[in-house]
């Protein structure tokens, strides 16, 4: 028996490639992380950065032209190479997922009761009657009012926030060890988003569930996540604990993203926009994918991919950039000054 401590979940060099008419497109390129009980990992990125595809690959849910490489170890078992029958015993049971759009990910033909009891009958072998009791408890746990009555309703009879509660209750039915949430609050209003985020925090506290939270909203990450991974063009730009990401961003993209977020506090200084548009994944540059939009890029950035390695200033911070943190900070201050002078 190996003595190395086994992580709840360990992802090693996960990659996703799609066969398209334009050739092989690589959507995700080598992401790695570990997750232990009660921890929360945030995966941040803009549309097309590969954040959703990476978790779909973890759950074996890629489209038919997609191909996952690398390893996704759940308690030492590789989810990617395992036969589908074995995977079906784990996903939805030990590793569960909440999808972005609560309307399209629930079956409109089935009542909430049928959709929830199905999970328990399949994974736990419960009778329909026992499953129903358990499902009502789960809806109670996500603070659904009148759960016993509403469980007989169809998805269209619920509001967006309530539907998302149904999704969360369904994901938690088997008390999973890992909960993967793909933009769970993006389709919701801010006041409802706040309710759902508090709910997730409470559930994590009560059940010790590890959460992988995918979002483009840095505010959501700040409130929920211990560890943050910043993706761009399918590659990890920076990976560190939340405090380091927010207070000492060391990658030009992370720093640029933080400067571009509209903020409630502080003055009305214009937001620092990142020029250009997200990259075409079929035509990524040979070097760092952010080169084209990076205001501080060096000549070698476009041709030579920076290694993803522990940073010189802090070994806990993993980053992929040719510049050091001091250069990034200094350049960012200069850009802010220039922008202030223009405005």
């Amino acid at each position: 028996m190996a003595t190395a401590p086994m992580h709840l979940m360990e992802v090693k060099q996960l990659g996703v490639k799609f066969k398209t008419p334009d050739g092989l497109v690589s959507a995700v390129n080598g992401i790695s992380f570990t997750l232990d009980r009660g921890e929360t990992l945030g995966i941040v990125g803009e549309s097309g950065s590969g954040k959703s595809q990476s978790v779909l690959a973890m759950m074996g849910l890629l489209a038919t032209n997609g191909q996952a490489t690398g390893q996704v170890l759940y308690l030492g078992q590789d989810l990617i190479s395992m036969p589908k029958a074995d995977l079906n015993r784990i996903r939805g049971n030990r590793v569960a997922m909440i999808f972005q759009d609560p309307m399209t990910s629930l079956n409109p033909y089935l009542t909430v009761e049928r959709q929830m009891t199905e999970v328990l009958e399949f994974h736990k072998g419960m009778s329909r009657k026992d499953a129903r009791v358990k499902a009502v408890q789960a809806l109670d746990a996500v603070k659904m009012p009148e759960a016993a009555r509403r469980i007989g309703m169809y998805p269209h009879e619920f509001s967006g926030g309530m539907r998302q509660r149904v999704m969360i209750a369904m994901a938690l039915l088997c008390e999973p060890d890992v909960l993967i949430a793909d933009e769970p609050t993006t389709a919701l209003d801010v006041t409802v988003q706040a309710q759902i985020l508090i709910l997730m925090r409470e559930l994590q506290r009560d059940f010790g569930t590890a959460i992988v939270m995918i979002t483009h909203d840095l505010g959501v990450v700040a409130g929920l996540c211990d560890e943050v991974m910043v993706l761009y063009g399918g590659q990890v730009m920076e990976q560190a604990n939340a405090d380091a990401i927010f207070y000492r961003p060391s990658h030009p993209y992370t720093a640029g993203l933080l400067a571009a977020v509209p903020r409630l506090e502080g003055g009305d200084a214009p937001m620092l926009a990142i020029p250009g548009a997200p990259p075409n994944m079929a035509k990524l540059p040979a070097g760092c994918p952010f080169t084209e939009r990076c205001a501080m890029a060096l000549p070698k950035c476009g041709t030579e991919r920076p290694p993803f390695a522990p940073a010189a200033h802090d070994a806990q911070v993993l980053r992929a950039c040719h510049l050091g943190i001091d250069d990034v900070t200094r350049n960012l201050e200069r850009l802010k000054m220039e922008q202030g002078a223009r405005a």
Partner: protein
Amino acid sequence: MTDALTPNQPLLAVKDLRVHFPIRGDNAWPWTPTRFLKAVDGVSFELRAGETLGIVGESGCGKSTLARALLNLVPITDGSVVWNGDEMRGASAQAWQAKRKAVQMIFQDPLASLDPRMTVAQIIGEPLRTHVPGLSNAEHNERVLAMMLRVGLTAQQINRYPHEFSGGQCQRIGIARALILKPKVVICDEPVSALDVSIQAQIINLLKELQAEMGLALIFIAHDLAVVKHISQRVMVMYLGRAMELAQKHALYDSPSHPYTQALLSAIPVPDPRVERGKSLQLLQGDLPSPINPPSGCVFRTRCPKAIAECALAVPALRVITTETQSACILS
């Protein structure tokens, strides 16, 4: 119709505007009374030349319907809309058409609001063809090109189709189309909510630059209070078809007076772990009530943490609290 503006006359004065949509149930009897969805129910405000009014609220609060009603894109049920001193309620289609030369709109979904079968040049040039028909071809092309360059598009893109552009670039095309007539007012209906954060900042900064350059007044509609803060001078908060609070920006963000504004502000996640983990939330309970059958009195009372019995009695109107703030709460 006059375009000359007396100094104190607002560019736009909206008074008690109502937009109600009739709803007939699928299996209603012929004698069943028609019910109405009250999308906008008694909203009043003024807009002055060169200023930016932000309108915020959650989905279903009527902010988009309000924007459309201001241009007669949805029929107005009741109330008055006065553009430049001209009462537009019940005005003819020709009168509205003439007004739209000075009042343009930017829509939410950048790709869906552009005709997929028109080139960029045709899209941006269409308002010129409609409103300035006498223009020579050379001058027409020159104006289109100048506008394209101004919003950050390139001359080579002039014959491309909308699907060839990214979301941010499509929104630039929408802005160019709205601004080519040099309007006085642009109504922006969620212009950045479909865009990524880094692109959002580009578009907001562009709008601010163009506003300063052309002396535009903007009505900026968004659900994101942080975005609105960066561009507005005054902000109106809507809930279920009514205005809850209308205040100068700093008053609204520093000391919100309506309980709904307070709840909305506290619900926004702040990108700062120490603040976000330590903050106390005023959580609203429940969901938005149906606009077909809104609560009596104050529409917010069913979710309001401070509601008292009097809230159910009468509909509170916006009233002046301080010189900078108007609120529709009987407690503030």
